């Protein structure tokens, strides 16, 4: 599903040049649950952003489903993104002015899903996440765990092939964190590919493979368990 060849990302400020990704070569197959670990500043999030098509690489190639997309214009990347990808962030990133229901519905508005289908799908997901009773609440009125469940629901509402999760449990206590990891594992079990950046070894082991990074490079890849 994903293949990178010498993927490099350099950030240039006035005087300093920072290499966030240094010739990264990885491959992720459909149905995998891959965790990315490494110390702060090693390039994990940059990798996630580039693979998530919300940032473009400085050099190297990025193949998504066999197509080189690393250098496509924003409009085309946005189109691939909205139909194939779902994002989950550490800080949830829900829109404060929208209710739970509206936040989950949002991606379907951009993919022009008819109103009745949207309603059905949102309700189905909120039921599944056990937060239907909070549908009319605003994000600030929910606990962290609930907010992250809403964020996960939003990420999968368009049935993406790939979910990119950037420290999804980073802001949660262990009980809520477990709940989110359970949801992700269930999604993976139904065939969704997941790429997750995390600091926690415990969470990383929910995946079938762990990629370890240091200074913008992939240093090791451990297989936790064979994916099905």
């Amino acid at each position, binding site marked *: 599903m994903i293949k990178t060849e010498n993927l490099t990302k350099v950030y240039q400020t006035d005087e300093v040049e920072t290499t966030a990704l240094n010739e990264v070569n990885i491959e992720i197959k459909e149905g995998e649950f891959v965790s990315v670990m490494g110390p702060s500043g090693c390039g994990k999030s940059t990798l996630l952003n580039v693979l998530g098509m*919300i940032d473009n690489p400085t050099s190297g190639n990025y193949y998504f489903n066999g197509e080189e997309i690393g250098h496509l214009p924003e*409009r085309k990347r946005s189109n691939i*993104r909205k139909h194939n990808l779902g*994002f989950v962030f550490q800080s949830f990133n829900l829109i404060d*002015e929208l209710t739970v229901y509206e936040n989950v519905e*949002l991606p379907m508005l951009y993919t022009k899903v008819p109103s009745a289908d949207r309603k059905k799908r949102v309700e189905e997901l909120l039921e599944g996440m056990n937060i239907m009773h909070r549908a009319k609440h605003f994000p600030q009125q929910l606990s962290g765990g609930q907010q992250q469940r809403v964020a996960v629901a939003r990420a999968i509402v368009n049935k993406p092939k790939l979910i990119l999760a950037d420290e999804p449990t980073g802001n949660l206590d262990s009980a809520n964190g477990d709940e989110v990891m359970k949801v992700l594992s269930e999604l993976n079990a139904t065939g969704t590919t997941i790429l997750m950046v995390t600091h926690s070894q415990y969470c990383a082991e929910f995946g079938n493979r762990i990629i370890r990074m240091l200074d913008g490079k992939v240093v090791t890849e451990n297989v936790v368990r064979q994916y099905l």
Partner: protein
Amino acid sequence: MIKNYITVAIRNLIKNKLFSFINLLGLSIGTAVVILIMLYVKEEWTYDQFHTKSDHIYRAWVKEHFKGELIFNSVTPLILGDELKNSFPEIRETARFMNANALLKKGAFIEDEKVNYVDPALLKIFDFPLLKGKKENVFTTLREAVLTEEIAEKYFGDSAPIGQNLSMQVNGEWVDFLVSGIIEKAPGNSSLQFQILVPFENAFDFIGENGRNCWTCVYGETYVLLDTNANLENLKTKIAPFIDEKVKSSYQPGEYIVGLQPLTDIHLNNAIPTGIAVVSDARYPYILASVAFLILLLACINFTILSVGRSVNRSKEVGIRKVTGATKWQLRFQFWSEAIMMALFGLSLGLVLTKLLLPYFNTIADKQLSLDFNIWNFSFLIGLALITGLLSGIYPAMVLSGFNPIQAIKGVFSKIGNNKHRVLRTLVGFQFVLSIFLIICTFGMQKQLRFLQNKNLGFSKEQTLIVPYGGTGKGFSDTWQEALQIQERLKKELAGKGVQNILTSSHTFGTQGWAKLGYTDERLDKFRQFIAQQIDYEYLDIMEIEMKAGRKFSKGNTTDNKAAIVNEAFAKAWEINDLEGATMPEPFNDYKIIGISKDFNFASLHSSVEPLVMVTDVLPLMRTAPDHNFTDSPLPKFSFKIKSDNLVATIGNIQRAWKGVVPEETFNYTFMDDSIDQQYRSESRLSEILSIATGLAIIIACLGLFGIATLTISQRRKEIGVRKVLGASSADIVYMLNKRFTILIFIASLIATPFAWYFMNQWLSDFAYQTELGISVFLIAGLLTLLIAWLSVSFQSIKAALMNPVESLRNE
């Protein structure tokens, strides 16, 4: 999707109450100003267009080159209309329209009224509907009158006016006029205004039969209706030789030109002399429209400034939307629709504001504007909201939508931040440039108006009450005799009752009209004109008009009824250097010139002083002059010089005395200084509207400033806290926060000054007498802006400076 945008927009509005309030207030004030001024401008621009045939109606003008003098008139010979209609088939109708005053009587009630002498075709050419009576049935006989409802009610009360008689004084006799129709009052945007219409033939009672076929005398206006397919250019080329032929006994070909001015061009065309209708300055609607749009622009800039200031808060949403699949254009559409929605809210509030302000605005603008919801107005309002929204939304739409999603989510904006501050400074600076420009212009105009009001005009205008005397319908000479007797009786009645003196004159200062006499100077073979004024013996003394040479009139001197006093302008133009044996020029040389008065500004200060001749009996002068141009009646006017204490009681005394001496004559008084001020009415109206507009502009700019100060300070809270911990005093903090705005205002003043200076000089060039703008106007404008800006900013700065530093740091 739209629903989603609207939801977010409304929730944002509610969440940021202060900024929503600033935006809404600014936009609604801006919108209200635009609506009010556009109503005004629309009326000015659509004058006379309500007539269905307005595109084919013209007013004739006459230009005569006569002995070196150019005489240009929109008042024409009475023969012109018929001659044109009978000779050119493309001219469908012509009608004459003349203004005059006449005494009207119903029972014991007598009043002087404005009467219009018109041809019946007037009702065919123009769309003035009859409320009672039929167009084909009115003006079938000579002594008929068509009245407006107002006049009908005044003379007939509740009883039906049609078929009743109303008496009008014609050459000293009361003549009955049968009321045959009631006509709708002409709308405010009609050049032709009337209240009593009578058939034109009645005018010959006082014009005399000579006026009927005379090509060199002008009396009324002539309106012409052309066929829909008539070729105007073609017609003009045919009229020229036709007129040459008609006037060949007095003029060479090309010396006497008749032209046609489109009806819809009359109101704003200063190039053609004012006829019966009031002509406005065509530049004023443009000036006012520009000011209105500048104010709206200020409100749009506020919206932009607050959007930029709050862009960090909105950036997370932008990032999330991008990540969930929004394209740049979808985001642009979202921000633009938000801005348009805001503009629509502003429009709704603006409409309420307009409704509330309209009566007040009508008083200032001297109009009867109303806000009707027709297609034109509706499209204009929607268009206005769209433009306002698009303009306000440019920055948020173009910039916010371009944010990189990761940076947007994280709120990292180092480069955007710098750029943002530049944009903010430029926008706030631009607002100040506009505000300072408007303040300078307002101050400048007010200074000029004050200058006009306070300028020593060369006579005493204060405490002078003017009452015109219409007479009992006898001839000019008899009316004057009557007036002089009444003057004496009033003097006796009012002795010791607060009146210092009573004067009579044919014209008073401050009126727009004069009696201009013209003659051909045989020696120079040149046509020359001067203004003639009849005054009484005491007039010059009491009005405190100073003499340059010679003496004033003296009652004891029996030859003074054939004596003239001229002003300096006359003496200069006619080269009268020595009064020894000086007489008026031929053919008026039986008048001796006994004195030269200093020039005084008897007419408006728009023009310099014209040659003036003052005599104690003007009739022989008028009889001798071959050419007359009366822009106001030369019938006597009384000037009551009153003591300044207890004005109300004195006016009451005069009124009672008047009732006793001339019970049949209405007591209509004006104050001379008021009439003089009226000469600058259009300028003072512009200045008044501009002052209000400037006030509103300042409010809007200050709202923006207050908002931006709030934002800046909230973003610099940590810095303020750290500075205070390190030892900065509250004054240091206030100084630091205010310094930037002060520099900005200084730069804005430098930019605004040359523009304002140029504009004011253009405006002042309309006056023959101009005030010095002086540096003070510019300095005060800058300082005032600074003061207002400091007040808006300091509230926030002082609050921030007084805050416990821990508060600022804890919030980080």
